C-alpha cells in the first residue's frame, strides 16, 4: 500500500503547488517539498528491509485482459533510484525556491516537477512493463513541459520539442520491444520476466526486442547516436537540468538496462551494442564537453559521457562491471547534481554561463567555489572523492575486456575517455574558479548565494567526500543491495575502497590525470583547431530532419489533399469501380442469367431512343444550363413513363411530381447562377472523365443486366404481397410497405425532407450578412426582362387550378392505401398548386394570404407521424404498429379507417411544409438580387378594377 502511495504522492501532491502558490512562494515550495519529503520518508521506512534483501510488492488489477496491472515492487535497484529521485528531488525543490525569479510562475514549475517526479518513481517501482511504459512516456511528457518552462526562450521551446521527439520516439520503440518481451514470456510482470532469461535469449525475437528496448534506453539516456538532444535541453532552468539531466531522467535508460540486465545481458549482441554505444558515448561526450563554453553545456556533455561510462559497464555483462556501474550511478548523481546546482549559482550570481568570461570566482564566492571544485574533482576522478573509486573500477573492468578479439581497444578508449574527463573537469576548476578574473564586466557582481541555494549542493558535496573516504560504510549496503538486484544472483567479490594497490587501472588513471592536465594546457590551441573542424551540428541536423519531414509531409499531404473536388470524386468513382470489379472477379463461377426476357415493344424502343438522345445531348450541351435542365426534365419524363410501363404506377407519380418541384428549384437557382458553364476542361481532363464515366456506366449497366437476366427465387416481398390486404389493410402493396411494413423508413424519409428544408432556411437566413449580402446588393440583372411580372391570363388560370388541384391532392391522398397515390404525392400536388399561386400572383400577394407557417407544418408533420407510432408504443405495441377498421356509416356506406393514414397525414404535412419552406425561402434570395419590391396586387393591372389601385408595393420585411 505505502508503495503505491510513494508513487501516487507526487501525482496527488501536484495539485498542491498550483493551489498554494496563492499563499506565496514559500508556502508553495514548502508544500511541494513536504510531498516529496513524505514520499521519501515512506521510502526510507522500507529501506532497511530492502537492504536486508526483502522485496516489497503490491498489486492492483487494472486491465487484466491486456496484462496491464498496477503492480509495484521495491528491491535494491528500485530503492537506489527512488532514493535518488526523491532525495535529489527534495534538494532541487529547495534550490529552485531560491533559483526561480519573481517573474517565473513557481506554482507551475512545481506542478511539472512533481508530475515528473511521480513518473520517475513510477518507472523505478513498476513491476509491470506496460505500467513502466506508461511512466516512461510520462517522463517524456513532463520533461517536455519542464524544458519548455521558459516558454519565451526559443531555445527552451526547441529543446523541449527535440527532447520530446527523441525520447518519445525511443519510448515508442520500447513499447514494441516490451510487447515482444511480454509475448516471449507470456507475462508483462517484471518479476516473471526476470525469471525467464533463457527463454528470452533463446527466442528468435530476442534481437528485435533487445534493439527496440535499447532504442528506448539510449534515447532517454542520451547515448550515442542519440546524445544530441541533451545539451539543448539545458535551455531549461538549472534546477531542471540538475534534476532531469543529471540525476534522474537520463538515468531512466540506465535504470532500465540495469533492470533488464539479468535477462537481456550476457549475449554478444548485448555486449556489442551496449558496450560499444557506451564506450563511444563516453569518449565522444567527454571530447565535446572540453570545448563547450556554456557551463551547462559542458556539464551536459560530461553527463552524456558519464552515462556512456555506466552504459559501457552494463554492456560488459559481467557482474563486477555491473557493480561498478551501480556505484558510479550513485557517485555521478551526487557530484553531478551538485555541479549543476553550482552552475546554476554561477549563472544566477553572474548573469552568464560563458566559461570564457569567468576566472577567479572562488575569491568572490568561496562557498560555491569549494563545492564546485570538490565535485568537479570527483568528476575528474581525483583521489579521494567518490568519483575516483568508481572510475578505478571502470578502468579495471575495461582492462580485461576484449572487443572483436582485440584487447587494447577498450582499455585505450576508456583511458582516453577518462583523460578527456579530467580535461573538462579541470577546465571547470581552473577556468572558472581559479586564476585571474577574465571579465570585469560581468552582468552582476557575484557573491555567495543565500543559504537555501548553496545548502543542497553542499549536502551533496559532503556525500561526495564521505563516500570517497568511507565507501563501504556509506554506500556499501546500498551498492550491495542494488547490485544484487541488478545481477539477480550472487554478488561477485568486490571491495569499495580508495586504494586497490598498483593496478593497471591506477596506471590508466594516472595517465588520464596527467594527459588531461596537459590537454587543458593546450586548450586554446585545440580550441582553434576544433573550431575549424566542421563537426556535424546535431541541432541543425535535427531541425533540418524535422523540417524535411514537415516539408515532405506537406508535399504529400498538400498535393494529395489539394482541395480539388473533381479529383476526390474521380478517385472515389474509380475506387468504387475497382472494388466492384475486384469483387466480381474474385468470385469464380459467375453464371449468366437464364431468365426469360421481355419483348421490346415499339413505344419502349422509342422511349429508349429518346432517353439516349437526351442524355447524350445533356452531356454535350451542358454548357447551356437552361437547355440541360430541359433535357434532364425529359429524362425524368421518360423515366416516369418507364415506371408506368414496368408496373410501377406509384413510382411514376412520385417521379413526375418530384420532377416538377425540382425544375422549379433549379430554375430558381439558375436565375442566380451563371447561365452558361465555361468551357474550361482540358482535352486530357475530358478524356479522363470520359473513360471513368464509361467505365462507371458499363459497370452499373453490366451489373443490372446480370441481375435482370436471372431469377430471384425467394424474396421477403412475397410476404408483403400476401399480407398487405389481410394484415395491413391496403391493396396498394407499395403504399402498405411504405406506411406499415417499412413505415420506419418513411418516418426517416420525411425527416430527411424536413431537415433539408430547415437547412435551406438556415442557409438562406445568413445570406443577409457578409459577402453574399454585398453581392446581392450590387446585383446587376444580366438578362432582358419582360415588363409584366404577373401575366393576367396565368393569374386567372391558376386561380381556377388551385381548388382543382387541392381536390386532386385530397383524392390522391385518400386512395393511397389501396391505389397508386399517398401522402407524399398528395403533398407534392398541393405544394405545386400553392407554388403556382406564388408564380402567378407573386410572392407578396400570395404570402399575405397564406395562413399556415411552413416551419410549423414540418414540425407538425413529423409529430403527426410520430404520434401514430407513439400511440401504439404507449399501448404496449411496437412503435408504428398500425390498425385499421372498416366503418359503416348510413348513406355513405362502408369505408376503411387505418391508423396508417395518420402516418400518411404526417408525411403529407411534412412534404408540403418542407417544399413550401424551401421554395419560399429560396425565392427570397431572388428578390434580393432583383431589387424588386414584393407585390401587394396579384396582377400588374386588373382591368376590372374601376379605380386606380391604391396599394403601393410593400417592402418586404
Amino acid at each position, binding site marked *: 500500500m505505502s508503495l503505491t502511495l510513494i508513487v501516487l504522492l507526487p501525482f496527488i501532491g501536484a495539485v498542491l503547488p498550483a493551489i498554494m502558490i496563492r499563499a506565496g512562494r514559500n508556502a508553495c515550495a514548502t508544500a511541494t517539498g513536504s510531498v516529496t519529503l513524505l514520499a521519501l520518508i515512506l521510502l526510507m521506512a522500507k529501506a532497511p528491509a530492502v537492504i536486508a534483501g526483502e522485496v516489497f510488492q503490491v498489486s492492483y488489477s487494472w486491465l487484466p485482459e491486456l496484462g496491464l496491472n498496477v503492480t509495484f515492487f521495491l528491491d535494491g535497484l528500485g530503492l537506489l533510484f527512488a532514493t535518488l529521485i526523491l532525495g535529489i528531488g527534495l534538494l532541487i525543490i529547495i534550490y529552485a525556491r531560491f533559483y526561480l525569479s519573481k517573474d517565473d510562475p513557481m506554482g507551475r514549475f512545481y506542478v511539472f516537477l512533481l508530475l515528473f517526479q511521480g513518473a520517475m518513481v513510477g518507472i523505478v517501482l513498476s513491476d509491470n512493463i506496460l505500467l513502466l511504459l506508461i511512466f516512461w512516456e510520462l517522463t517524456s511528457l513532463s520533461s517536455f513541459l519542464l524544458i519548455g518552462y521558459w516558454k519565451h526562450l526559443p531555445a527552451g521551446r526547441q529543446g523541449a520539442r527535440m527532447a520530446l521527439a527523441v525520447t518519445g520516439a525511443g519510448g515508442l520503440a520500447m513499447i514494441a520491444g516490451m510487447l515482444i518481451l511480454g509475448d516471449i514470456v507470456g507475462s508483462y510482470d517484471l518479476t516473471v520476466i526476470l525469471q525467464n532469461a533463457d527463454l528470452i535469449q533463446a527466442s528468435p525475437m530476442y534481437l528485435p526486442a533487445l534493439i527496440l528496448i535499447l532504442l528506448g534506453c539510449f534515447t532517454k539516456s542520451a547515448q550515442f547516436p542519440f546524445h544530441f538532444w541533451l545539451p539543448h535541453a539545458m535551455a531549461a532552468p538549472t534546477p531542471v537540468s540538475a534534476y532531469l539531466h543529471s540525476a534522474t531522467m537520463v538515468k531512466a535508460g540506465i535504470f532500465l538496462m540495469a533492470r533488464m540486465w539479468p535477462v537481456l545481458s550476457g549475449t554478444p549482441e548485448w555486449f556489442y551494442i551496449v558496450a560499444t554505444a557506451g564506450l563511444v558515448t563516453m569518449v565522444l561526450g567527454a571530447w565535446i564537453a572540453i570545448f563547450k563554453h556554456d557551463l551547462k553545456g559542458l556539464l551536459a556533455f560530461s553527463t552524456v559521457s558519464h552515462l556512456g561510462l555506466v552504459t559501457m559497464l552494463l554492456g560488459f555483462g559481467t557482474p563486477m562491471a555491473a557493480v561498478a556501474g551501480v556505484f558510479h550511478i550513485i557517485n555521478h548523481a551526487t557530484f553531478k547534481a551538485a555541479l549543476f546546482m553550482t552552475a546554476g549559482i554561477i549563472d544566477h550570481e553572474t548573469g552568464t554561463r560563458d566559461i570564457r568570461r569567468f576566472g577567479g570566482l572562488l575569491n568572490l564566492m568561496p562557498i560555491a567555489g569549494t563545492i564546485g571544485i570538490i565535485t568537479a574533482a570527483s568528476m575528474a576522478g581525483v583521489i579521494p572523492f567518490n568519483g575516483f573509486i568508481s572510475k578505478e573500477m571502470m578502468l579495471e573492468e575495461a582492462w580485461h575486456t576484449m572487443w572483436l578479439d582485440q584487447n587494447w581497444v577498450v582499455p585505450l578508449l576508456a583511458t582516453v575517455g577518462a583523460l578527456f574527463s579530467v580535461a573538462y573537469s579541470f577546465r571547470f576548476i581552473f577556468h572558472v574558479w581559479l586564476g585571474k578574473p577574465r571579465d570585469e564586466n560581468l552582468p552582476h557582481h557575484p557573491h555567495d548565494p543565500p543559504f537555501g541555494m548553496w545548502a543542497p549542493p553542499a549536502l551533496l558535496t559532503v556525500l561526495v567526500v564521505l563516500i570517497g573516504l568511507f565507501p563501504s560504510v556509506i554506500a556499501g549496503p546500498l551498492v550491495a543491495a542494488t547490485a544484487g538486484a541488478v545481477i539477480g544472483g550472487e554478488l561477485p567479490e568486490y571491495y569499495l575502497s580508495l586504494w586497490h594497490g598498483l593496478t593497471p587501472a591506477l596506471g590508466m588513471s594516472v595517465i588520464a590525470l596527467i594527459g588531461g592536465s596537459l590537454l587543458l594546457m593546450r586548450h586554446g590551441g585545440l580550441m582553434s583547431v576544433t573550431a575549424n573542424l566542421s563537426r556535424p551540428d546535431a541541432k541543425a541536423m535535427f531541425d533540418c530532419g524535422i523540417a524535411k519531414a514537415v516539408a515532405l509531409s506537406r508535399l504529400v499531404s498538400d498535393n494529395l489533399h489539394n482541395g480539388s473536388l473533381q479529383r476526390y470524386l474521380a478517385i472515389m468513382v474509380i475506387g468504387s469501380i475497382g472494388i466492384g470489379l475486384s469483387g466480381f472477379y474474385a468470385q469464380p463461377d459467375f453464371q449468366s442469367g437464364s431468365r426469360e426476357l421481355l419483348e421490346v415493344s415499339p413505344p419502349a424502343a422509342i422511349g429508349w431512343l429518346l432517353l439516349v438522345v437526351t442524355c447524350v445531348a445533356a452531356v454535350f450541351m451542358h454548357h447551356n444550363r437552361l437547355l440541360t435542365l430541359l433535357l434532364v426534365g425529359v429524362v425524368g419524363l421518360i423515366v416516369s413513363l418507364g415506371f408506368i410501363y414496368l408496373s410501377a404506377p406509384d413510382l411514376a407519380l412520385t417521379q413526375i411530381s418530384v420532377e416538377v418541384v425540382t425544375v422549379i428549384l433549379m430554375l430558381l437557382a439558375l436565375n442566380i447562377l451563371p447561365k452558361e458553364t465555361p468551357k474550361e476542361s482540358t482535352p486530357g481532363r475530358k478524356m479522363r472523365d470520359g473513360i471513368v464515366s464509361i467505365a462507371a456506366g458499363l459497370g452499373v449497366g453490366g451489373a443490372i443486366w446480370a441481375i435482370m437476366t436471372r431469377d430471384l427465387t425467394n424474396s421477403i416481398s412475397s410476404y408483403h404481397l400476401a399480407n398487405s390486404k389481410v394484415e395491413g389493410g391496403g391493396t396498394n402493396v407499395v403504399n402498405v410497405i411504405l406506411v406499415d411494413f417499412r413505415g420506419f423508413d418513411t418516418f426517416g424519409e420525411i425527416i430527411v425532407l424536413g431537415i433539408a428544408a430547415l437547412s435551406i432556411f438556415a442557409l438562406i437566413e445568413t445570406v443577409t450578412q457578409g459577402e453574399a449580402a454585398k453581392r446581392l446588393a450590387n446585383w446587376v440583372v444580366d438578362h*432582358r426582362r419582360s415588363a409584366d411580372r404577373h401575366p393576367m391570363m396565368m393569374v386567372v388560370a391558376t386561380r381556377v*387550378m388551385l381548388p*382543382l388541384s387541392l381536390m386532386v391532392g385530397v383524392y390522391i391522398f385518400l386512395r393511397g392505401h389501396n391505389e397508386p397515390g399517398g401522402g407524399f404525392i398528395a403533398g407534392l400536388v398541393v405544394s405545386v398548386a400553392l407554388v403556382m399561386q406564388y408564380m402567378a400572383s407573386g410572392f407578396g400577394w400570395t404570402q399575405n394570404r397564406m395562413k399556415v407557417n411552413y416551419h410549423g407544418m414540418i414540425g407538425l408533420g413529423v409529430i403527426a407521424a410520430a404520434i401514430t407510432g407513439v400511440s401504439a408504443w404507449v399501448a404496449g405495441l411496437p412503435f408504428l404498429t398500425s390498425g385499421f377498421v372498416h366503418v359503416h356509416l348510413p348513406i355513405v356506406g362502408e369505408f376503411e379507417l387505418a391508423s396508417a393514414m395518420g402516418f400518411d397525414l404526417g408525411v403529407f404535412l411534412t412534404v408540403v411544409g418542407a417544399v413550401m419552406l424551401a421554395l419560399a425561402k429560396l425565392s427570397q434570395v431572388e428578390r434580393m438580387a432583383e431589387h*424588386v419590391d414584393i407585390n401587394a*396586387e396579384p396582377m*400588374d393591372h386588373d382591368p376590372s378594377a374601376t379605380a386606380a*389601385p391604391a396599394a*403601393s*408595393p410593400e417592402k418586404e420585411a
Partner: protein
Amino acid sequence: MPFVIELIISLLIVIGGAFLLIGSFGMIKLRDLLPRLHAPTKASTVGLGSLLIASMLFFWVERGHFTIHELLITLFIFLTAPITANLIAKAYMLLNVDPNKDLPPSKQDEGWATFDPIGPEGYDPSEEYQEKET
C-alpha cells in the same frame, strides 16, 4: 364488344394518333416559333381529346360502367394549353421580336404587356435593366 363501338373506338384512336402526329409534325415543319405554336396547341389537344374519348368508350364497354375521369384530363389540358401557348409566345417575343417593328400597335394607351410596363404606380422593371446596362 359491338362492332360499331369497336369501330368508333378504333377510329377515335386513329384520329387521335394522327392529330398528335400532325401537331408534332407541324412543330418541325413550320419555320418560326409563332406559326409552330399553332400546331401542337391545337392538334395535340384534339388528338389527346379523341384518345380520351376512345378510352372512356372503351372502359364503358369493357368494364360495363361509364368512366368519366378522362374528362378531367381533358379539362386540365383545355384549361392550361392557352396559358402555355401565351407564355411561350411571350417568352419568344421578349427575346426575338422587336415590338416597334414586328408587332402591330395595341391601339390602346398601353403597349403589349410583354414589353410595355404598367402596374401599380407605373412600376417598370425593364427600366431598371436599361439603366444598369448603360
